């Protein structure tokens, strides 16, 4: 595609063990890069939830690609068209690389509004119906670096029929062709990359067909849609992703939509996924929780001893309801429920806990504040609670991805998995014991 510059350089590919590499030459001048497996920066209209630019900049090693969603932006189309210089300048984020997706992964989408010619997004003022023409007009107004092509993703609910799934694959391919046609004739979109969307629900042959057909089009990368947390169990998800990625070219990135839990991320990386959306730390923040799972793979007992206590000391602290993880894996409402990777700071046990959220964490929150203060901010409904939790959760989540890449580079994925999943298993044991008491 004209102006396409983004390059994926894979340094390691182990079948069934993930891909390690760097997406290079990103951004208008090509000076940015993004390591994979990695994730995008989740935002509301270019702003990481709760964080002003100053607080965001206390975080180092943030992903170089920021995710925007049309569900936030569509209602501002007229403003952006009048502004003319694109969203980057509009938001005052002059150095950002933007990826524009259709929906916000943190907000479950209502179904039943997709037609042959349109998809709908929900903004602050309600539903906005997008035709390909309007969708592309929005992309011209936003001027992102990459965008997700228009897609019919209404197949994530259980019991979606094969007929409906086939329709979704066909529509999505038709949308892609139309988008590409407009794209190629738009000067404003020169150098902008299009990601094709792979649908197919939980039907293997539809997944494969969708992947194969999309790969024939001039796209820069692939969005894997309809596999989000709550839509299916991980075994099925792994199976589908493995089958689809076989159909996709090696040299183009695969972005998985709607999956963010560390255990699911690990499994999906092994199935061949490169990129994720970082909405998970935001969801954790919104329920007043802090990520605290360990991802330290250091064999050095001293080093391990330094990083581990935060988690080891958590024995029995993780879970407050006593039954957060046992069920709900298949429940779409699961998204709002606490997982075993976090602690609930609203819980009384933290009312006089003078430790940082995670011992040894270098984030602004952990360096400056204690659990007792976070607990106070949460019970008094203070806005700073969201700010501080978001800082920590963002730092923790991106550090997990860094550890994941390091583990892939050093053949330590098994150690990392044991660390991340083993704890989860162990935690479930503890919860069971708690309950039986």
């Amino acid at each position, binding site marked *: 595609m004209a102006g396409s510059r983004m390059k994926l350089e894979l340094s390691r590919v182990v079948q069934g063990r993930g891909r390690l590499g760097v997406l290079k030459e990103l951004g208008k001048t090509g000076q940015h890069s993004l390591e994979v497996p990695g994730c995008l920066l989740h935002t509301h209209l270019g*702003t*990481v939830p709760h*964080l002003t630019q100053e607080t965001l900049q206390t975080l180092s090693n943030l992903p170089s690609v920021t995710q925007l969603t049309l569900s*936030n932006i569509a209602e501002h189309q007229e403003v952006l068209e009048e502004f003319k210089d694109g969203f980057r300048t509009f938001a005052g984020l002059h150095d950002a690389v933007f990826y524009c997706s259709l929906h916000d992964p943190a907000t479950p989408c209502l179904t039943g509004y997709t037609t042959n010619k349109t998809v709908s997004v929900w*903004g*602050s003022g309600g539903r906005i119906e997008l035709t390909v023409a309007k969708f592309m007009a929005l992309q011209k107004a936003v001027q992102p670096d990459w965008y997700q092509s228009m897609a019919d993703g209404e197949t994530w609910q259980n019991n979606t029929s094969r007929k409906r799934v086939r329709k979704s694959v066909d529509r999505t391919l038709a949308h892609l062709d139309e988008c590409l046609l407009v794209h190629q004739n738009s000067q404003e979109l020169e150098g902008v990359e299009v990601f094709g969307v792979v649908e197919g629900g939980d039907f293997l042959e539809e997944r494969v067909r969708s992947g194969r057909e999309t790969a024939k089009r001039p796209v820069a990368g692939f969005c894997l849609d309809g596999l989000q947390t709550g839509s299916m169990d991980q075994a099925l998800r792994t199976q589908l992703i493995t089958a689809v990625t076989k159909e996709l070219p090696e040299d183009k990135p695969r972005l998985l939509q709607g999956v963010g839990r560390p255990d699911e991320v690990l499994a999906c990386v092994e199935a061949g996924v490169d990129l994720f959306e970082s909405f998970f730390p935001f969801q954790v923040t919104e329920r007043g929780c802090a990520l605290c799972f360990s991802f330290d793979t250091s064999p050095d007992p001293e080093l391990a001893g330094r990083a581990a206590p935060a988690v080891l000391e958590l024995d029995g602290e993780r879970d407050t309801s006593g039954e957060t993880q046992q069920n709900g894996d298949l429940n779409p409402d699961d998204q709002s429920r606490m997982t075993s990777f976090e602690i609930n700071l609203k819980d009384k046990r933290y009312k006089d806990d003078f430790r940082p959220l995670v011992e040894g964490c270098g984030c602004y929150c952990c360096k400056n504040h204690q659990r*007792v*203060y976070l607990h106070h901010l949460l019970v*008094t409904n203070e806005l*700073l609670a969201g700010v501080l939790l978001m800082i920590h959760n963002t730092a923790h989540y991106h550090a997990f991805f860094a550890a994941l890449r390091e583990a892939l580079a050093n053949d330590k994925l098994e150690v990392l998995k044991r660390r991340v999943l083993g704890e989860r298993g162990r935690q479930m044991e503890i919860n069971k014991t708690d309950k039986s008491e």
Partner: protein
Amino acid sequence: MAATTECGADVNTSENNMSVMKALSAASPLTLRVVAECPVTKARACDLILPHCAVSTPVFMPVGTQGTLKGITVDQLEGLGCEICLGNTYHLGMRPGPDLIEKANGLHGFMNWKRNLLTDSGGFQMVSLVELSEVTEEGVKFKSPYDGEEILLSPEKSISIQNSLGSDIMMQLDDVVSSTVSGPRVEEAMHRSVRWLDRCIAANKNPDKQNLFAIIQGGLDAELRQACLDEMTQRDVPGFAIGGLSGGEEKDDFWRMVTLSTDHLPREKPRYLMGVGYAVDLVVCVALGCDMFDCVFPTRTARFGSALVPWGSLQVKHKQYAKDFQPIDPDCPCPTCKRHSRAYLHALFKSDTAAMHYITIHNIAYQLTLMRSVRRSIVDGCFPEFIRTFMKRMFPSRDQYPGWAVDALASVDVTLD
């Protein structure tokens, strides 16, 4: 310039220091250096040295009710140049409670704020909880809104909590009467406030680390105010607040009570006008001789999208700003104005709380910048000119100047053109 300045000749410094120190209690952890006095009005610029750092006055103190400033981190607050902020004894005494805050090394440690803190007595909240409270000589009795338990806030209890909070400036418990009430209740409250001041002074466990301010009461009655001033200025306290105002009284009464108070307060001690924070009120009351101010307004109004500007305020959420691509105030040096436009903030209000934080930062910056400009003009000897320019910018025309402000300024020889 008529001002006695400490930053003038070096030889005088230690001498002046001595005289200041002598006027204060020997152990008082507070020093006030008058840097400049306006030759026309009663305004002064001072360096107020408190345990955690020096404060340049006139100063506006943002209010962090629950040990946090509305979504702003302590680093951001420090970055804006804030040298002192407020915490509320009533709220913090309820949650998380004085014992816990003491364990956290006081409110400073609890919220990790390195600069100065001022705490109120907790009494003011009783005005809003008046149905729940009963005032006796012993103290204020009220029902806890959390568990319904009856609680007595006595002068001793208030100081004990504030000692646990470890604030740099504590306020005495006063008998608060709404400024719209008149009659014998006001007189009773004034006398009781004097008696409570003595009990507060006696109860202060940390006079070497924590300054206790008296609060001048007396409602809108000049004779009662005068009597209260006579009594309280005889006490050896490091500073004075002017209380019982800013509660819905006529502005004509308000400024007369302020100027009466500053006329009789000692020059070498700080004067804190409680609950005042609108820009015009700040400028006028500095001219009347006040040094310190606090108000929830700038941070509260920010959360509703109201940005303070030299020409009044700007409602960021209003439709007219959807396509307005300028900063809130092109001359404002704050991080919000340096990066974001009115249009972006307008849009962001629909998507994320960070929009509120951006306006909060701007509004605090506005208040602090205003006070720094006021101070500069006092030091430069051109405060009256500053006032005239300020009023011209704030009001579209002369006939929109509030009458009370014109009168108040005339009383200190500033005529507006």
